[in-house]
């Protein structure tokens, strides 16, 4: 299938570029690390407080770092007008979005899972026993952020106030991702961890709706 083969080729390019530059992973990791450490020093929370407020803090840090990470997603394609070359080369423009959102999901997920252990240490929260379930929540939440963020990155890359526009558009739109992700994470960090499928269901629905919208209308976002 041309869509899948094109996506695979473009995903490889995204990963290769990041492997060479380390730009996105470094920026996002450092940002989340700073937020986690600063909050830990400022509030010095107890273990119970950490379980109560930690997930919200964690997801806010993920969201802010995602807005940093997603900013250059399409902006770098404008530098040498490589986006035009891609549009002429691919048979289905959705492949461009699919590759970028897969890459963004992977970058976000890697950063989140790495920083989860820093969070566990600073906030005295046990995460190892629920790690696979947390990874599932992080995956669904990251996919929601990446899907919406990739689409908005394509829009904002054409705008004059692009640096400000992306976070302004992204934050309100991601409230439906932020709440279920935080609640599902909180339920997993409690003394008796539970996997809340009701919240996960909302995340899955959000991902499916935005992915379908991107598939249907993404082509228009790539036009000048």
């Amino acid at each position, binding site marked *: 299938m041309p869509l899948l083969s094109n996506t695979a080729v473009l995903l490889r*390019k995204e990963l290769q570029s990041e492997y*060479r530059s380390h730009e996105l992973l470094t920026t996002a990791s450092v940002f989340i690390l700073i937020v986690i450490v600063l909050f830990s020093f400022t509030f010095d929370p107890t273990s119970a407080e950490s379980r109560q407020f930690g997930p919200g803090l964690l997801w806010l840090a993920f969201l802010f770092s995602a807005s940093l990470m997603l900013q250059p997603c399409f902006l770098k394609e404008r*530098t040498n*007008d490589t986006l035009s*070359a891609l549009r002429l080369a691919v048979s*289905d423009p959705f492949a461009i979005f699919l590759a970028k959102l897969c890459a963004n999901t992977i970058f976000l997920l890697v950063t989140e899972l790495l920083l989860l252990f820093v969070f566990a240490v600073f906030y005295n929260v046990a995460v190892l026993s629920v790690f696979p379930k947390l990874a599932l929540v992080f995956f669904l939440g990251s996919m929601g952020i990446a899907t919406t963020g990739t689409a908005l990155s394509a829009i904002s890359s054409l705008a004059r106030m692009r640096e400000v526009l992306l976070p302004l558009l992204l934050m309100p739109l991601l409230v439906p991702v932020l709440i279920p992700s935080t609640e599902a994470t909180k339920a997993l960090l409690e003394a008796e961890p539970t996997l809340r499928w009701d919240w996960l269901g909302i995340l899955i629905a959000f991902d499916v709706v935005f992915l379908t919208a991107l598939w249907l209308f993404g082509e228009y976002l790539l036009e*000048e």
Partner: protein
Amino acid sequence: MSQRIGRPAGFKFNNIEKRFGTLYALRRVSLEIAPGECVAVTGRNGSGKTTLLRIASQLTRPTRGDLNFSGLSDGEVPSIGYVSHAVMLYDELTAEENLLMFARLMGIPEPEKRAVTLLEATDLASRARSLVRTFSRGMKQRLAIARALLQEPGLLLLDEPGTGLDTESMAWLVNTVRGLRDEGRTIVMSVHGESALSQLATRAMRLDAGVVFADTRSGATFQAVFAGTEA
């Protein structure tokens, strides 16, 4: 899904208009370029040459009017090679990786072989594994032309392709365009004034403020079109 065809394709602009806000880049342009023609488009900066080429490549949608391709059957779309002002290459990839990636996206059979052929043709084989960011402007331009030729396009759109090329590279470009023209491929190139490249054209066109000001197939009047004294 439409099938991309490498057969020479022409195109027809029917009352095409392109506006950027209140600025008109093209004003109700109607023209027809037949398959196999080699057209040199000239004009001052901001006359609409780039917009014309971008609309023909379908990268830019016109504000008004229609674009139709000729020389193809129903359901077929032309295979378009496009060289723009920007090099349309990834700086963080090597020359070989750039060509291989685009060849794979285009579904070219034996992409490695095609990439090697073009790297040799553009005299970049010795720098195949160097990152594009280390290339000079002229080398990037040669690689950009190689990228445009990957799928042996039936319609080649060149926006000032001589930019940054030294004498040797320019000679290579002229020979390449001559070869493609002699193969019967359709070529539309924007040029600034008369040059070795513009002499290959079988038709000359001058744009002024988004309007086709002069259009001739008569070689005798080419010089006047390029000099802007045809009126």
